[in-house]
């Protein structure tokens, strides 16, 4: 599987270079009008910078642009991609290593057109495919905020991309295939709240950067439909936001979804992995109105009512090895039931219910395996500043397969069993 992918990517890479030569001729229109760059810029105001600070939280900019334990916005965090490692840049106004020489128009060009100050094509790990939706007004406010930061000098860490992905030609073709600058006009058939939510989710929030399905070259079609994607970063799966069997929220009460985005914890479950980071660093800080708008939009992406269940005899029941299931049940009783309950009922808001949990029943058991083996605290937010946590469980492959197989067939679940091979490929 891995080998096929690698070979596939190699061939795709070669094809990319060849096609790029032809493509270069007709690549012309995805950059800013040069006149806009030389125009004089109005000075930014403190109000604008304050609004920009709020927008930067919605965009979670500091999360990628701050190294672990490093100075805020000074860059240096490595981001793993299937094509190599990309290192986020320094956004502070340091003249040598940051944005010290940038203007508001340069910044707008980066967000809207995906190009740096010198016109070079930025790598799409910087999600300009989403940020192109951001308005010029918001872009200027963000820039005013970044200008107000103390400058930090930090030697730039080079990216480590495999050939040919970082080459200008590869970037040119990638852009021709997957990127068109521009913003989606508001949908007049939807409410102002829905449109605000759509703007935040598609633009600043760049939710599609993780939840949007990608092809072999990391490109997204159909406006980045958020049908789920495997992340190179940490190995997590960002579940589909359109599928009620994964993370579609059309059937959640609106208030619960707002509460989940604010605290990371509701009776429906707890934000895990990279999403926990998003809740802590971004969504918990958003104004109520914006959270509600995002929730309204997100709920519109999947069905609002779940279809009536088919009669039990009409449902396909996966074949589960009874011996393996029994081993799993014993592991559950010994290690899990004291917190999650004999019936998987959990303790709402503290220990998630496992009965009915989509983390448990999703087709891909990867996140479930990750949660069991890594453990973790619920997101520490202002609403839940002293979270409860789950210990990491050091179980063998066979035990993990048995435990997850049990979970996926207990309490009326009918999800496919998990094999040891699946456990091995996930870890």
């Amino acid at each position, binding site marked *: 599987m891995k080998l096929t992918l690698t070979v596939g990517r190699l061939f795709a890479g070669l094809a990319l270079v060849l096609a790029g030569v032809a493509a270069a001729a007709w690549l012309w229109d995805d950059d800013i009008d040069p006149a806009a760059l030389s125009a004089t810029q109005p000075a930014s105001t403190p109000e604008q910078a304050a609004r920009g600070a709020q927008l930067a939280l919605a965009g979670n900019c500091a999360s990628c642009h701050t190294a*672990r*334990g490093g100075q805020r916005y000074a860059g240096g965090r490595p981001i793993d991609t299937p094509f190599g490692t990309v290192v986020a840049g320094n956004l502070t106004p340091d003249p040598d290593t940051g944005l010290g020489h940038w203007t508001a128009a340069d910044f707008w060009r980066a967000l809207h057109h995906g190009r740096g100050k010198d016109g070079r094509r930025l790598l799409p790990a910087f999600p300009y495919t989403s940020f192109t939706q951001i308005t010029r007004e918001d872009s200027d406010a963000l820039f005013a905020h970044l200008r107000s930061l103390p400058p930090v000098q930090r030697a730039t860490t080079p990216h480590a991309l495999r050939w040919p992905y970082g080459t200008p030609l590869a970037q040119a073709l990638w852009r021709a295939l997957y990127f068109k600058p521009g913003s989606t006009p508001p949908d007049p058939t939807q409410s102002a709240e829905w449109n605000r939510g759509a703007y935040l989710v598609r633009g600043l929030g760049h939710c599609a950067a993780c939840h949007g399905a990608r092809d072999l070259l990391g490109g997204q079609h159909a406006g980045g439909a958020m049908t789920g994607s495997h992340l190179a970063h940490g190995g997590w799966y960002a579940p589909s936001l359109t599928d009620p069997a994964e993370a579609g929220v059309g059937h959640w009460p609106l208030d619960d979804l707002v509460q989940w985005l604010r605290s990371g914890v509701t009776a429906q479950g707890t934000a895990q992995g990279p999403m926990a980071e998003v809740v802590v660093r971004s969504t918990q800080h958003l104004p109520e109105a914006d959270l509600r708008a995002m929730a309204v939009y997100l709920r519109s992406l999947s069905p609002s009512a779940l279809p009536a269940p088919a009669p*039990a005899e009409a449902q396909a029941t996966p074949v589960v090895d009874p011996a393996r299931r029994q081993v799993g049940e014993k592991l559950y009783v010994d290690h899990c039931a004291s917190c999650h309950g004999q019936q998987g009922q959990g303790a709402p808001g503290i220990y998630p219910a496992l009965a*009915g949990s*989509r983390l448990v029943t999703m087709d891909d058991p990867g996140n479930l395996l990750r949660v069991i083996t890594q453990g973790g605290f619920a997101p520490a937010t202002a609403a839940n500043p*002293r979270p*409860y946590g789950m*210990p990491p469980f050091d179980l063998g492959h066979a035990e993990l397969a048995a435990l997850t197989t049990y979970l996926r067939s207990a309490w009326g*679940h*009918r999800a496919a069993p998990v094999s040891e091979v699946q456990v091995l490929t996930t870890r």
Partner: protein
Amino acid sequence: MKFAALIAAWWSTLALATAAPVSVPDTLAQRLAPCTACHGQQGRAVSGAYVPRIAGKPAGYLYEQLINFRDGRRQNATMVALLADLPDAYLREIAAHFAALDLPHAPAPAVAASPTALVRGEAIARRGDASAKLPACADCHGEQLTGALPAMPGLLGLPRDYLIAQLGAWQTGSRHATAPDCMADIARRLSPADSSAVADWLASQPVPQPMRPAARPERPAPLRCGSAGHAP
């Protein structure tokens, strides 16, 4: 198929409305189950294992280490993942919780070490070695090597493998403390044989009962240490 699974799950949750939620004690000990899974019930760790005891260590030291793991100065993958994004206030509370535990130690496990290594190890620990520019462990870690408040950890009652791993991590630069990182300087002056000898001796010492850190540092600090609050 996916849908069928979902719906079955959904119906079962409805059925579960009757199963009473698990009752969870509102205590710090319960919240910190992720810590005690490895560091032992009540933070005492397991005799002979790699994982260090945290119960009764100075709160300042524990807090500093939690911050170090979270912010990239220490690298244990499990600790790093667990502590990601936890706020300072909670980490301070966690440190105080384990520091306040006053529990007896298990007897030190037998350490297979040569008598020569033990003699050398004891010399370094108690008196240091001026010719190798090595201050004594006791200069900072307390006359009894049980640590000193507010932030100096004790060195007794720790597994030999853990001690060796920490000295190695300082020597290779994967463990750091707040600058100036005095322990990194000292660890780099230790030869491999001396590292091993001092770990042998420390791990084989009986632990005083009760083992408590000294109320304050007992000797003048031989180096400037960020972790002890000295300015860089």
